[in-house]
């Protein structure tokens, strides 16, 4: 039997050979499809993975739905909350901020094994802390580290015994061992804690420096630790007496609730009423899971990551549409006669259409499938470098988002098919004979410019360029769009560099101009060293609450006339808030915030806003700082002696008594550069991508233009017009369009930059957007030079055109 090849199969073979033989020209389409799909699928996998990791922690750690923070639970509070409609589980706990060295630790103590907000760990035991905290303390599992509790034991004992605090304390003085100290007279009680293991915890997702570490234990553990501390100082009788008192004291200050879905608001409302109706309310805050500080941070990061999944690839999708359409237009144009021949051979229009649409589909599929494989592997891995620095979450494989990936591929291939269809449609509609004949040149009405007197003065090459543009509006638009994209991406790339530099500069030169940052030992005096002026300040982590939510923040206290803070004038009336926090909390100058720090809640007015990329703080003067009992335990040092280097000053200071540690601006800059390294890579990629886009679009369209005017060029050569002049008319056209594209692209750079930077924006890092005029200039210059280079190289081809071509019949 004779094998009869199927004509469609022959056409498919043709696509395959064409792509193989002109691979470089088609590479751009594959590359762009690959980038678009890689980004979309990768970013989808990233946010889904992050979301899933959070879900797992919340589920396994039984994240509560409602948090009730009080200054100390009173009779009936717990019972009231537990009995509310919709409440499925309730648990009370002691929650307080403690310190270990200069690190802050949040201590959560439950009566027994916690049932809500519980640690996720493999380890045996009941005392756990998060990994990040252990790392910061430089401690290990099973190793003791000091923990200072600043509980007001005096008033606790007073409450428990009904005797004035001073009387109880005096009694305790009598029960001291030889050389023992009445620890209850001190500001803080220091315990020696050994953790049984590390944990993941739904309330300790954030691993940033502004978040305190989390330590969980049972009341029994706490009593044991206190007992151990007491035994060093008190006699057996004293220890027993104190422990008896403590055992009967309810230390709990928080209620955690698990609430049926949809009941959160009602429960919160009822609780506010309950506490509000008391004579003096012991309520500090009530918030639900959504607005709990840790959750708010990660939720906003997930939402941002999700948004980027759509925003970022949209740019690439638009670019791919542009690149596909120019490439296919070019191809179809080149295949003009081949199309006529195929029709003449009796192929149906549909078959021919499918054939040419096949190019776009095959190319996009090639790039797309590669993208679906690479994206979900590569992007989450890269993003996890950042995520794992910021969050403590279980490690999971990225979920395979079948529907999203499928839809993305389908969309891309659909777009490719549609663009190819639109480009081919007219060509295919022609009758076979028409197809085989040359394309009839288009005529158009004269524009007003062409009738003007100025027109007569223009050189012919310019007039030809103008007419080509006017008569090929679609192509002109594609050039403009491509060039516009290139310029916008370049401005964006350089703008990101400017923004980073600006953010770092503002932080190290404007806000905190001092070169040295010192951590002082407890109660130590300011060091004194010639050539450096010092000023002490206080720093503590806290929480800010407004009507729109709760946020973790740093509380800084500087003297009112400080030289070390350049963010604005400090006032005793209130505090300066960072712009980022102000936006997140929805407050402005004159508004009031609830500030919680060291277990104390106070209302503080916002008297000003400052901008910072890195320090999201509320800056107070001592008159407000004292409300929280904040003591200056840090200092800034400004070097006044120019011969003293930062490193030398730091070395000198570190060896001085009372100085725990010193960091210099140089160190900070180095750290910043390390953190920002990934962003710098992005900017480099963006710039390369921008130039690539311009080259591909300009090359495709200029080549198309060149092919269409092949005969014209040959004729002009026969007419004796020098090659340079012929090339000039081609370059005129392209450069004019490039100029228009560049001018439109310049102002678009800023919004593109803001979009791209959002990918790296976190709760901790805010970008102070800035694009220097020089960046605009360089971007425009690169675009114009790229365009000129592409056209210049094509112009060189004019020389190679054989004049004999002019004698041939068209095509």
């Amino acid at each position: 039997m004779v094998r009869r090849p199927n004509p469609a199969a022959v056409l498919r073979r043709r696509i395959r050979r064409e792509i193989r033989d002109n691979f470089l020209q088609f590479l751009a389409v594959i590359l762009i499809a690959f980038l678009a799909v890689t980004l979309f699928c990768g970013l989808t996998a990233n946010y889904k993975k992050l979301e899933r990791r959070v879900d797992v922690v919340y589920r396994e750690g039984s994240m509560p739905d409602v948090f009730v923070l009080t200054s100390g639970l009173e009779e009936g509070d717990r019972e009231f909350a537990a009995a509310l409609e919709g409440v499925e589980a309730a648990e009370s706990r002691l929650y307080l901020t403690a310190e270990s060295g200069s690190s802050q630790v949040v201590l959560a103590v439950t009566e027994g094994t916690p049932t809500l907000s519980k640690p996720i760990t493999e380890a045996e035991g009941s005392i756990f802390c998060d990994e990040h905290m252990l790392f910061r303390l430089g401690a290990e599992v099973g190793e003791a580290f000091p923990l200072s509790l600043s509980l007001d034991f005096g008033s606790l004992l007073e409450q428990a015994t009904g005797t004035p605090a001073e009387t109880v304390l005096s009694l305790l003085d009598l029960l001291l061992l030889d050389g023992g100290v009445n620890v209850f007279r001190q500001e803080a009680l220091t315990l020696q804690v050994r953790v049984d293991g590390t944990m993941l915890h739904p309330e300790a997702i954030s691993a940033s420096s502004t978040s305190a570490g989390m330590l969980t234990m049972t009341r029994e553990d706490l009593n044991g630790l206190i007992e151990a501390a007491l035994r060093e100082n008190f006699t057996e009788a004293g220890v027993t007496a104190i422990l008896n008192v403590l055992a009967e004291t309810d230390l709990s200050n928080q209620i955690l609730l698990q609430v049926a879905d949809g009941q959160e608001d009602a429960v919160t409302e009822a609780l506010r009423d309950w506490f509000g109706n008391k004579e003096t309310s012991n309520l500090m805050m009530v918030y639900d899971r959504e607005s709990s500080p840790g959750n708010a941070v990660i939720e906003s990061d997930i939402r941002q990551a999700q948004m980027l999944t759509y925003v970022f690839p949209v740019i690439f999708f638009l670019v791919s549409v542009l690149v596909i359409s120019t490439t296919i237009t070019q191809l179809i144009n080149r295949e003009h006669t081949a199309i006529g021949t195929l029709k003449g051979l009796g192929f149906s229009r549909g078959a021919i259409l499918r054939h040419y649409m096949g190019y776009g589909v095959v190319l996009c599929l090639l790039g797309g499938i590669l993208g679906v494989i690479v994206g979900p592997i590569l992007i989450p891995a890269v993003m996890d470098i950042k995520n794992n620095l910021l969050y403590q979450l279980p490690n999971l494989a990225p979920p395979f988002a079948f529907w999203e990936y499928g839809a993305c591929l389908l969309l891309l291939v659909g777009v490719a098919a549609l663009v190819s269809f639109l480009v081919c449609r007219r060509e295919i509609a022609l009758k076979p004979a028409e197809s085989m004949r040359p394309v009839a040149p288009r005529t158009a009405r004269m524009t007003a410019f062409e009738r003007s007197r100025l027109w007569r003065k223009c050189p012919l090459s310019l007039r030809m360029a103008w007419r080509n543009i006017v008569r090929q509006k679609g192509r002109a638009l594609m050039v403009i769009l491509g060039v516009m994209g290139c310029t916008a991406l370049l401005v964006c790339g350089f703008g990101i560099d400017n923004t980073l530099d600006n953010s770092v500069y503002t932080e190290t030169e404007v806000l905190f101009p001092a070169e040295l940052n010192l951590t002082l030992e407890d109660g130590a005096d300011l060091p004194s060293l010639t050539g450096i002026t010092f000023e002490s300040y206080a720093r503590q982590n806290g929480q800010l609450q407004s009507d729109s939510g709760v946020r973790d923040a740093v509380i800084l206290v500087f003297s009112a006339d400080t030289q070390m803070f350049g963010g604005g004038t400090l006032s005793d009336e209130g505090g300066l808030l960072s712009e980022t926090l102000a936006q997140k909390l929805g407050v402005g100058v004159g508004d009031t915030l609830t500030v919680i720090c060291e277990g104390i809640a106070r209302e503080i007015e916002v008297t000003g806003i400052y901008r910072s990329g890195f320090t999201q703080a509320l800056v107070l003067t001592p008159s407000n700082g004292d409300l929280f009992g904040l003591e200056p335990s840090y200092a800034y040092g400004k070097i006044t002696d120019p011969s003293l280097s930062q490193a030398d000053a730091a070395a000198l200071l570190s060896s001085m008594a009372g100085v725990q540690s010193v960091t210099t601006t140089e160190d900070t800059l180095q750290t910043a550069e390390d953190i920002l390294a990934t962003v710098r890579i992005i900017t480099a990629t963006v710039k390369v991508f921008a130039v690539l886009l311009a080259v591909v679009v300009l090359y495709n369209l200029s080549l198309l233009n060149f092919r269409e005017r092949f005969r014209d060029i040959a004729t002009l050569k026969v007419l004796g017009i020098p090659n340079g002049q012929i090339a000039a008319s081609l370059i005129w056209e392209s450069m004019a369009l490039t100029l228009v594209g560049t001018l439109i692209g310049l102002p678009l750079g800023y919004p593109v930059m803001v979009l791209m930077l959002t990918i790296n924006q976190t709760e901790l890092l805010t970008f102070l957007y800035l694009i220097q005029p020089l960046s605009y200039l360089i971007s425009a210059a690169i675009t114009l030079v790229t365009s000129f280079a592409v056209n210049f190289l094509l112009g060189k081809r004019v020389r190679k055109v054989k004049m004999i071509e002019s004698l041939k019949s068209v095509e």
Partner: protein
Amino acid sequence: MELIECKDLCKTYGTGDLEVRALDGASFSVEKGEFVVILGPSGAGKSTLLNLLGGMDTATSGTLRVGEKTVTALSEKELSAYRRKDIGFVFQFYNLMANLTALENVELAQGETGMTAEEALSLVGLEKRKNNFPPQLSGGEQQRVAIARAIVKNPLLLLCDEPTGALDSRTGRAILGLLSDLCRKDGMTVIVVTHNAELGKLADRLIRVNDGKIVENALQTAASPEDITW
């Protein structure tokens, strides 16, 4: 003195076994003001001869002199100037720039001396259509524009490659009439290259080419364009 003197002109393409002698020792001369028809079947070498005459290609050997210039000795740049100043070229498919008006197409070839583009257009009877674009003109009109473009610079030589090849016979006759007038009335030297023997009747000098050689070079009495048919 003859306007064109051509001696032993050879043009070979390819090398070795694949060598093709497109033109094999062509020698002839043309007087100023003559209407010359170069006649031959396709592949005879007439296009090669045309290319060499027009300075669009270089000869392998032999000499070609047009006016004062030895074309075979000119450099690339000089050839370009030669085409620009001395040669008027009329193509079979007109080869007008579609995005330039009739007037602008003529202006394209306008030199510092010679007539203006408008004068050239009125000479071919198209002054009224000067602002039309080529696709808006008929084939005959387009060829007239092409002729205007060729003569605007007052060339030494008007080279026409199958000037009626794409036209119907009536229009073709009109174009030939125009070329003939340019020769008789304005003293222009016209060379028409064609495979159409009928056109040979118009010539003062008929040159037949076959297999790269000149097989006939004869002076004759030219017939009027109205008298020929094809």
